[in-house]
Every structure is written in C-alpha cells, then in structure tokens.
C-alpha cells in the first residue's frame, strides 16, 4: 500500500471524527437550551465519549451528598458493575479522580496493580487494560467523575483527554444549570434530582419489563422512544409509568405477562 493511500485514509478518519465531534456538541448545545432530562443528557454524554474517543467503555459517577458516589450513567452493564466494585471496595482510579479533583489515568493497568490491588484484577477480568478519569468540577468543588476504559494498554492521547474534560464540563453544566422554575436551586438539589431521576427510570424499566415480558434494555428503549415521540422528559415518562398514569405495554411488542 502506498504512503499516499495511508495518509488519505487517516485524513478521512480524522475528517469523520471532526464531523462527529461537531455534531456531538451541536446536539449537546441543543439539549442544554431546551427543557432537557438530566439522565438522558448524561447517557448521551457517556455514549458520545465512547464514540468520539474510541474507548471501549465509559461511566459517570456523581456525589450523592451523603458521603458516597453513585453511578448515574454507563455505556454498558459490565462497566456499571466495575464502577460499583470501586465504590464498594473504596478503591480505584475513578474514586481517586473525584477525591483529588484532578485527572487520573493508567496506561497499563497490569503495571499499576500495586496502585489499586483490588480494582486492577477486576478491571482486567472484564477486559480493560487502561483507564482515564476526569473530574466534574465547578470552581473548587468536585461533584463527580467521567471515566473511560480501554481494552488495549494504550495511553489516551492528550487531545482526547482534553475532549473528555470538555464532555465532563458539559455534564457539570447539565447537572448544575438545570433551570428551576421557582428559585435558583442549590447544587445539592440538582445532584439529588439527577440521582433520583436515575432511580425512577430503573423502577420504570422494571415495571415495563414485567408488564411486557421484555428485557431491561428493551424496556429502556421503549421509555426513551415514548419520551421522544411525545416530546416528554424521560424522567416524567418514568414517573408516569411507575405510578400507573400511563401504560406502555402496547409499545413493548412483547407478550404481555399474565
């Protein structure tokens, strides 16, 4: 293969990425000016992180205001479990990142086994070899962290880290600037709202999964589709489903359970 075709290929790849990057930020900007749903936005951010940075997986942790962190978004189930593993064992790069309020990374987890003796084997076990975590920060306060995992032991390039920090900043704005109709709301209320929305969505997934006899991913897709089609917030739809104010069983396409 000639060198020209290689560089041509790289340009195309880079061009594609520029386009995706621009599209992502336009989408996020659109979301932020509308009356957006916070969980929807954070899910979108985690997915963007995976798409834009080409990492294997990503997750987002938030301070729950009661001395713990909580997983509020993740690109897949095993990543969510790995985040929970860190919280339960009180050890790992994502916790360090939030505690220190600075980016934390490991280009090769196997070499960093001594740094996180519990986390590394668990991460390697599900196929991750490198990690990078950037903080969600507002001035001197850290409210959470955005974490990226890679299957290969490669450093995440400096440009990509800056991009990750930009995405983390969007998440911070999204969480803290949610417009409140009755007062300028405190950070605690915004964090509480984000975490509580996630819980309501999980409860709604359970209701739909049982009613429509579908799996959790399918249940979530139904919630999201209904929200988009009817121009409603995901959390509003979730609350209505759990409270029995709306029945989406017909939209599951599954066999309703008896």
């Amino acid at each position, binding site marked *: 293969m000639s060198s020209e075709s290689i560089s041509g290929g790289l340009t195309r790849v880079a061009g594609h990425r520029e386009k995706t990057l621009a599209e992502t930020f336009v989408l996020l900007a659109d979301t932020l000016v509308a009356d957006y749903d916070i969980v929807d936005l954070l899910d979108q951010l985690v997915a963007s992180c995976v798409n834009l940075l080409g990492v294997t997986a990503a997750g987002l942790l938030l301070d*729950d*205001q*009661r*001395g*713990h962190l*909580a*997983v509020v978004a993740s690109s897949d189930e095993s990543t*969510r479990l790995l985040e*929970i593993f860190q*919280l*339960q064992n009180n050890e790992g790069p994502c916790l360090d990142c939030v505690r220190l309020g600075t980016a934390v990374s490991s280009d090769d987890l196997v070499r960093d086994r001594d740094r996180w003796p519990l986390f590394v084997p668990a991460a390697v076990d599900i196929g991750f070899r490198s990690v990078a975590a950037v903080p969600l920060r507002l001035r001197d306060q850290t409210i959470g962290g955005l974490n990226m995992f890679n299957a290969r032991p490669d450093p995440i390039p400096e440009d990509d880290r800056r991009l990750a920090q930009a995405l983390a900043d969007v998440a911070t704005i999204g969480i803290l600037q949610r417009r409140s109709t*009755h*007062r300028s709301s*405190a*950070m*605690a*209320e915004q964090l*509480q709202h984000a975490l*509580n929305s*996630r*819980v*309501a*969505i*999980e*409860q*709604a*997934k*359970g*209701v*739909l*999964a*049982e*009613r429509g006899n579908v799996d*959790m991913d399918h249940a979530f897709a139904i919630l999201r589709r209904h929200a988009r089609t009817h121009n409603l917030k995901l959390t509003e739809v*979730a*609350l209505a489903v*759990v*409270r029995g104010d709306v029945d989406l069983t017909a939209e599951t396409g599954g066999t309703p*359970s008896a």
Partner: protein
Amino acid sequence: MVDREGWAGLLAETAADRASQPLRISELCVELLGVTGAGISMVTKAGNHGVVCSTDDVSARIEDLQLTLGEGPCIDSVRGNAPVLVPDLNSPQEIAVDRWPAFLEGAGAAGVQAVFAFPLRVGAITLGALDLYRDQPGDLVGDGFSAALMAGDAAAQALLYVDTGNGEKGGPELDFGSNYQHQVHQATGMVQVQMAVTTEAAFLMLRARAFATGRSLVDLANDVVARRLRFSTEDL
C-alpha cells in the same frame, strides 16, 4: 453548623438505631440547622397518612394540622415532588395565604413564623415530607437548604427501613445496596406488577423477603430481574 462531610457523617450515624432514626434526623436538624422544631409525616399515594415523629409540641401540631386539613407545605411538597419554602408565613406576598388558609391560621396560633417542607423520595416513591419550622421569620441560613435536602434523603431511607421487625441492625451495606444497585430498583418495579401493589409496598416486600431468607437485597433483586424468582399473590 458543620461542613457537608460532617453533616453527611452525622446523618449516616443515625442508621445505627433504625427505630428512632427519623426522630434522630429531626433532632439533628434542630441542633444544627437553626430551626426551632422539626417533624416527619408519611403521606403516600396509597392514602396512608400519619405523623412519624416530631421534636416538640409545635412541630407535632404542624404535622397534625396538615394531615387533618389536607393542606399545607408538607402536602404541597409531596404533591409537587419538590421542596416548599415559606420563610415568612405572614408575608402577604406568600402564595401560601391563598393555598392554605386553615393551616396558616392554626400554625400562626401555635407561633410558627416560617416553615420549610422537603419531600422524602426514592425514585418514583414518595413517602412523605420532612417539615422544619421557625418561631421567627427568615430563610434557612447558610447551607441549611442543602443540609435539609440531605436530611430528607436520609429520612426517606429511614422510612423504607422502619417497621421491619425488632433488633435488626440496618448497617450501611443495606443502604448501600438499595442506593447504588439498579437491580434493586428494577426488581421493585417488577414486584410492583407481580403483586399489584404500590412501589413502596413492593420495595418493602423485597426487603422483607431478603430479611426472612437471610439474603442480601441485591442478591434477591438479581434473581427477580433474571426471572429466577417471581413474587406471587399466592405467597400472601
């Protein structure tokens, strides 16, 4: 006033005694948030109403009035699913005057000048509210608002764990499981449908089953989500 971490720590310690946890949380609010009194009422969608605790006679009166009259900041905060803050009950600008005429009269007579209500929530479950009052008008000072929200979260957890038998040591693991494991919330939704009950009842059933069978809530929830375990009305 303590800092955020200190306050979180104090709230976490209240879990050591589940039976008195709601009262202890209310007492902490009085000790550290500059309010005169605090109380918690349960107001659920299923229509169960009741005063859980109060730190003094006036707070008991506030809770009682609201439940009797069916109006007031606590009721509104449950309905609106958001905090309701009334820093001056006598201010003519307050919408409260139109919304709660009977409550205002009763609360005023008891010497209440400011009241702040925080809903107790776990996802779609709304259990009631934490009401703080002051005998002088004025806003919650400093980080009082954030601290009260945190107290409301702790109280919501406390109410879900209350009334589960004697002498159970509800450790932090239990809280941890219910807070951070999505399966628990997914399983709650499934059990709600299986048993045709409210969300809070479904959560309590899950929890009671875990306790009775000596399993962790998360383990049990995993079985429900994986459809290895179904709750059935025949179990009742």
